[in-house]
């Protein structure tokens, strides 16, 4: 049965994984505001103003809790105590980066998507396609997008498998420098992106960084 919105825990509410980084929490929060703000085309006729106020308050509360490391630890403790998550699922929140791919493999939904993507890649043959599409030392967001689409992989699937938010994925594929995450995160996202599509991670990271430097350096 579907959980009602108001019964979701803060992680579910913001659609982030349990060990997500503060950067991603901020991104997720921005996404939520985009969707639920009064001015949002997607929802302006969906909710009454009472419903909207209630939802936004809940989103705010979730954000303010998870972005504050002390509050977050206390909240996680609470989730463990009510049996919603097990302690072993919690990693140390201290030095959090984007979740590396090997961790995601253990998560059920992520790995389902991962398998789905693997199947597509096997069908299409990623080697030939990437040789065709990525010819240069400079790799643009467009190249990545073309390759992904040629493989028949959706942004949604990458998001599910890597938990890199669609907004970030779009910024990467759109060479949208203004909205790219700080370089330490960007590198780690590019790494996950490359890994999930079974590409040469070093080459992708190098190529993409050269690309944005050329454009805007």
């Amino acid at each position, binding site marked *: *049965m*579907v959980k009602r*919105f108001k019964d979701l825990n803060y992680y579910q509410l913001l659609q982030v994984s349990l060990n997500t980084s503060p950067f991603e929490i901020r991104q997720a929060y921005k996404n939520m505001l*985009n*969707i639920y703000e009064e001015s*949002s*085309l*997607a*929802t*302006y*006729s*969906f*909710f009454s103003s009472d419903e909207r106020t209630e939802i936004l308050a809940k989103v705010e509360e979730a954000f303010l809790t998870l972005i504050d490391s002390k509050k977050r630890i206390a909240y996680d403790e609470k989730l463990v105590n009510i049996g919603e998550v097990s302690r072993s699922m919690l990693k140390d929140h201290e030095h959090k980066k984007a979740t590396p791919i090997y961790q995601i493999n253990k998560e059920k939904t992520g790995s389902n998507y991962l398998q789905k993507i693997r199947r597509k890649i096997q069908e299409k043959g990623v080697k030939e396609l990437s040789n065709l599409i990525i010819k240069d030392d400079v790799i643009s967001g467009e190249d990545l997008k073309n390759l992904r689409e040629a493989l028949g992989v959706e942004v*949604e699937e990458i998001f599910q498998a890597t938990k890199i938010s*669609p*907004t970030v994925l*779009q910024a990467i594929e759109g060479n949208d420098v203004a909205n790219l995450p700080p370089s330490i995160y960007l590198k780690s996202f590019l790494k996950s992106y490359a890994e999930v599509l079974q590409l040469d991670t070093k080459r992708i990271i190098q190529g993409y960084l050269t690309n944005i430097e050329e454009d805007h350096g």
Partner: protein
Amino acid sequence: MKKIYSIGGGKGGSGKSFIAASLGALFAREGSRVVLVDLDLGASNLHTFLNLKNPPRGLDEFIDKKIAHLEDVALATSVQNLYLISSARCSLEVANLFYAQKKKLISAIENLPFDYVLLDLGPGTHFNTLDFFLTASEGVFVATPEPTAIENTFRFIKSIYLRKLKQSLKEADIWYLCRDEIVAMSRNGLTSPIDFINILVKKDIEQGKIFEDLLNGLKLRLVMNKVRGQIRENLGRQIVEVCNRHLYPGFDLLETINYDSRVYDAILSKQIFIGKYPYTKTAVALQKAARKLKQEQPIAIGLES
């Protein structure tokens, strides 16, 4: 196995007929036998997208009992394997269709001997339109990025859920359980399907769960049509996300399709858009939509009960 898709959505002019015709042509081009059924009785125009100016035969003959088999009025089009059952000569509004006529028409549609059956619906949320929509194994609804169109889309979606629920409760003969409350609630406008389910759960938990699962299983796909500019790319995804979160989780974004003034050109020059301009962004998106619809098996049970 035969598949029936319905193409609907509350707002007039969002592109339902254009998309139905394009998907039909794309399916047919890959060798499947496809029939388009124009169910916009009273304001039909599907034939125009297929360059059939005055359809010589149509649905009216079946409704008037002049023929026994609906497929007898399927007209060949300029696309091989693509047929059209037109309602251009129907003098009837969908609202004026009698119950028995509707039943008969729906069962004839279900038995059409084709690989793909695409139902092009009219605007609005009349219960006859909803019943046609629910005939399909998968529903596609078309919206455009304007506030009014999105508002109508949400209304259409909620109406679909309510109609499905009511139909199934009647079939299971337990409509009486919650009829009075529903009627009372509906006086203040459209009831949410979730409120509806809540009432049912209160009366009978077991039944409530059964029907909630039924709604969880409906598969609905959104097409965002006539999209212009970059900012709108995300809109379809957001709407789907909101529906999945706040209604029931069967929503999927089929495609975002760009506005292209050549859609109009193609009609004037009497050619099918995807044939005349196959490499435009709009045509490529339609091809993607067709491929996605065809390939992906519904994850959950379909709309048919």
